[in-house]
């Protein structure tokens, strides 16, 4: 919901109850006041009208009394009662006519005798009239009846006893018209359009009989009555004697309209009076007020909301809109913008803070941009280096798909870049000519996340022999990608092949004549060409021995040349070193026995098999042991121990022989070197043995050293690794 709407909602929620409550209270107050006013007014009217009515009635009685107390009339009547003289009646007649004329509201004056018989009157009633007995009772003037005359007019009959010398001599009945009363009830002063003053008498049954015409029913006089059951009609309460003010909505008049009423009661007459006015008319001012009030309320309402809206808009919405727009522009990328907000409140503060924040972001951004540029420059260098390298570079992702190849790789493999990208690396790297064990080692290293280097890889595509190096790049122990470097070694391989071939050929060329000498000498010595004399045998043995030395020398030289040319191949397999040692000792047995040497051995039975090149290590042992035997005096001791020490096997060959002179110890591993002391002793030796032994041991991942003292003896210490995989395969 927008702020505008929220503001509106707040305004409505706050103002509406207030206004509703306020207007409700005002209207109630006004109504109550009005009712009081009406009550007062009606009371006044009722009282006034009651007084007037009483006055009129009083008037009637007084008038009647006056008439009834005319002396001459009484004297004449009394006399008539005595003598019955009709001329007396004419006097009476003359008097009553005169009385009627001079009196107000009198319609008829009739004289009755004490028995109630009509004697004379202004209207001749002789036949039908007689005065009721009740009317003849009492000696006061009173109203006897209210009735309609022959002209259908309401009349009030008053009976006044005629008294002469303390004796009732007859009755006068004076019939008044009800004009006086009607004047009262037809006076609507202060009663608006609907109000009126009602006059009714209580009938014998308790009902109320209207005495005068009603404002809204002109024929009601003495014709319309209200049943006493109709308690809601105030005239009933009035004729029952209750003087009160009626305001509730159940109060109705004879026509069923809701009215306010004030009631009065005249005792004696049993007359009820009601001053009433329609509630509707009474409330007219209120209605008007209500309308005005409603209009004002609406105007105020709208006004307040409009002001609230306007103010709220200026204070909240506009600044927020400005800030929003500003923020949008910033996020679109324009960090140079700043907002100016003339506002001292929190919103202004927010704007200031935002400015500050943008400033900092801008700076940060700039700093980053610079860093990125720098890094990009650096990366470009690397990129260039990789792109222009003559070594093939390949990048593989964690799922082993090729993600990048440099031009050199394309050249070496002969596969176009398009073909390689996003293909599975294994299928596109490994040619079918790659040896299976190399391929497996390659895959294993990758699985284990270890680097792998091999010279035996054949690259798919051109089937180029390559030196392949795989380097997994790890992040938090998981492989993220691999970098593969390939070097075309076909030339190197060719050179290698040539070297190997050379050595092979050289050895063949050198050994062939030696073999010839060997076998012919052998055959001669075996007597295949006839019996030899001892001297001939002796000479031939020398020839044969000399040739053997030659063969040994050639072998050593060939090994050395292999070492030098780097075509030496180590072919490791699981070897029982102790068995090897024992076999080598067996070979030396003849020499040991001849020279009467004591042999000591110490073998560790728990030694596991070593992963070594059997031939080469045999050569090492042979060399060391034969040296030990060769360079020890007759009767000396030679010992061989092979034990396990941590991850290595410890080989010790020691003798109690001539030893190596201190100053020559440095050179002992050198090519063709023979120490001076042994040369003097005339023992045979090529001087190549230890050089070859050292090279082999070191190439096998081991170490060699010695301790020696001239004249005491020598001990050689050789260590070899027990574990697999410490060598790169070549």
């Amino acid at each position, binding site marked *: 919901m927008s702020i505008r709407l929220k503001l509106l909602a707040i305004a409505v929620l706050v103002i509406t109850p207030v206004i509703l409550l306020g207007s409700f209270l005002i209207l109630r107050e006004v109504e109550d006041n009005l009712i009081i006013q009406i009550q007062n007014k009606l009371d006044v009217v009722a009282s006034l009208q009651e007084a007037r009515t009483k006055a009129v009635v009083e008037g009637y009685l007084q008038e009647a009394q006056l008439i009834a107390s005319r002396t001459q009339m009484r004297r004449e009547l009394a006399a008539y009662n005595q003598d019955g003289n009709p001329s007396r009646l004419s006097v009476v007649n003359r008097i009553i006519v005169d009385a009627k004329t001079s009196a107000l509201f009198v319609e008829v004056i009739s004289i009755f005798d004490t028995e109630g018989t009509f004697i004379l009157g202004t209207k001749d009633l002789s036949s039908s009239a007689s005065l009721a007995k009740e009317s003849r009772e009492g000696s006061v003037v009173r109203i006897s009846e209210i009735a309609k005359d022959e002209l259908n007019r309401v009349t009030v009959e008053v009976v006044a006893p005629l008294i002469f010398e303390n004796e009732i001599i007859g009755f006068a009945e004076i019939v008044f018209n009800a004009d006086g009363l009607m004047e009262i009830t037809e006076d609507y002063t202060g009663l608006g359009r609907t109000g009126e003053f009602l006059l009714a008498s209580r009938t014998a049954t308790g009902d109320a009989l209207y005495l005068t015409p009603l404002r809204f029913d002109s024929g009601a006089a003495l014709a319309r009555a209200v049943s006493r059951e109709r308690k809601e009609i105030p005239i009933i309460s009035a004729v029952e004697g209750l003087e009160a003010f009626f305001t509730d909505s159940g109060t109705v008049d004879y026509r069923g309209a809701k009215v306010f009423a004030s009631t009065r009661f005249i005792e004696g007459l049993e007359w009820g009076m009601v001053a009433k006015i329609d509630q509707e008319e009474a409330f007219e001012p209120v209605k008007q007020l209500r309308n005005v009030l409603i209009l004002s309320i609406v105007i105020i309402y709208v006004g307040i909301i409009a002001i609230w809206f306007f103010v709220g808009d200026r204070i909240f919405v506009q600044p927020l809109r400005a800030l929003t727009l500003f923020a949008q522009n910033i996020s679109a990328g324009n960090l140079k913008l700043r907002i100016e907000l003339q506002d001292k409140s929190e919103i202004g503060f927010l704007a200031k803070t935002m400015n500050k924040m943008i400033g900092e972001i801008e700076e940060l951004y700039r700093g980053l941009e610079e860093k990125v540029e720098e890094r990009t420059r650096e990366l470009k260098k690397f990129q260039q280096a990789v792109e222009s390298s003559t070594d093939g570079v390949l990048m593989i992702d964690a799922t082993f798909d090729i993600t990048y190849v440099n031009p050199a790789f394309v050249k070496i493999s002969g596969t176009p870049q398009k073909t390689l990208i996003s293909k599975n690396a294994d299928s596109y790297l490994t040619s079918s000519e790659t040896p299976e064990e190399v391929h497996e080692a390659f895959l294993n290293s990758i699985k284990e996340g270890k680097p792998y280097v091999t010279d035996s890889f054949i690259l798919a595509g051109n089937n180029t022999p390559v030196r392949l190096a795989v380097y997994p790049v790890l992040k938090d122990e998981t492989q993220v990608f691999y970098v593969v470097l390939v070097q075309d070694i076909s030339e190197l391989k060719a050179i290698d092949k040539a070297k190997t071939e050379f050595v*092979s050929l050289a050895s063949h060329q050198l050994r062939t004549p030696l073999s010839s000498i060997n*076998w012919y000498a052998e055959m001669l010595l075996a007597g295949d060409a006839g019996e030899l004399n001892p001297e001939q045998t002796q000479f031939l043995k020398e020839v044969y021995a000399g040739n053997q030395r030659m063969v040994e020398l050639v*072998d050593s030289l060939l090994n050395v040349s292999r070492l030098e040319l780097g075509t030496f191949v180590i072919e490791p397999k699981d070897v029982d070193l102790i068995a090897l040692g024992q076999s080598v000792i067996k070979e030396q047995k003849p020499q040991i026995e001849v020279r009467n040497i004591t042999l000591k051995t110490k073998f560790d039975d728990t030694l596991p098999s070593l992963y070594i090149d059997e031939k080469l290590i045999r050569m090492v042992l042979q060399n060391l042991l034969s040296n030990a035997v060769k360079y020890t005096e007759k009767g000396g001791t030679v010992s061989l121990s092979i034990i396990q020490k941590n991850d290595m096997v410890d080989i010790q060959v020691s003798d109690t022989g001539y030893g190596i002179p201190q100053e020559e110890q440095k050179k002992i591993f050198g090519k063709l070197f023979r120490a001076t002391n042994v040369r003097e002793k005339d023992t045979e030796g090529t001087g190549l043995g230890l050089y070859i032994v050292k090279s082999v041991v070191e190439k096998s991942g081991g170490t060699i050293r010695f301790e020696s003292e001239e004249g005491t003896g020598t001990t050689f210490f050789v260590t070899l690794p027990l574990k697999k995989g410490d060598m790169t395969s070549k």
Partner: protein
Amino acid sequence: MFGYNITMKEKKTVLVIEDEQSLAEAIRMKLSNSGCEVLTARAVPEALDHLKNGQDIDAVWLDHYLIGREDGLDLVARLKSAESEWKETPVFVVSNTASADKVHAYMRLGVEKYYVKAEHRLEDIITDIKEVIG
């Protein structure tokens, strides 16, 4: 005629393929002295001729370097091929080259044994051969 079946032990024939004449002579002499028939060849085609001639060859003494384009390895490849009738004939390679790849190659093809000439006495080699061929 007598009711005995006299089985005479036939003389075993060894085919010696060696390019060095002096060596070939020594070998031939020694083999004959130990009671074997000897056939010699200096090159692969010659050797094959001998084989094809139908003579029963019980063993082959083979040097690596030979006269001609083909060397001992080529011959062994042929001898040990699936359709060859001399598949079962034991081959003894006696050469002065000791390069590991050559040795491996020969062993993989299924030769009986590989000797470095200069390291063995003629007599020892012949004893081995005789042991194998009976």
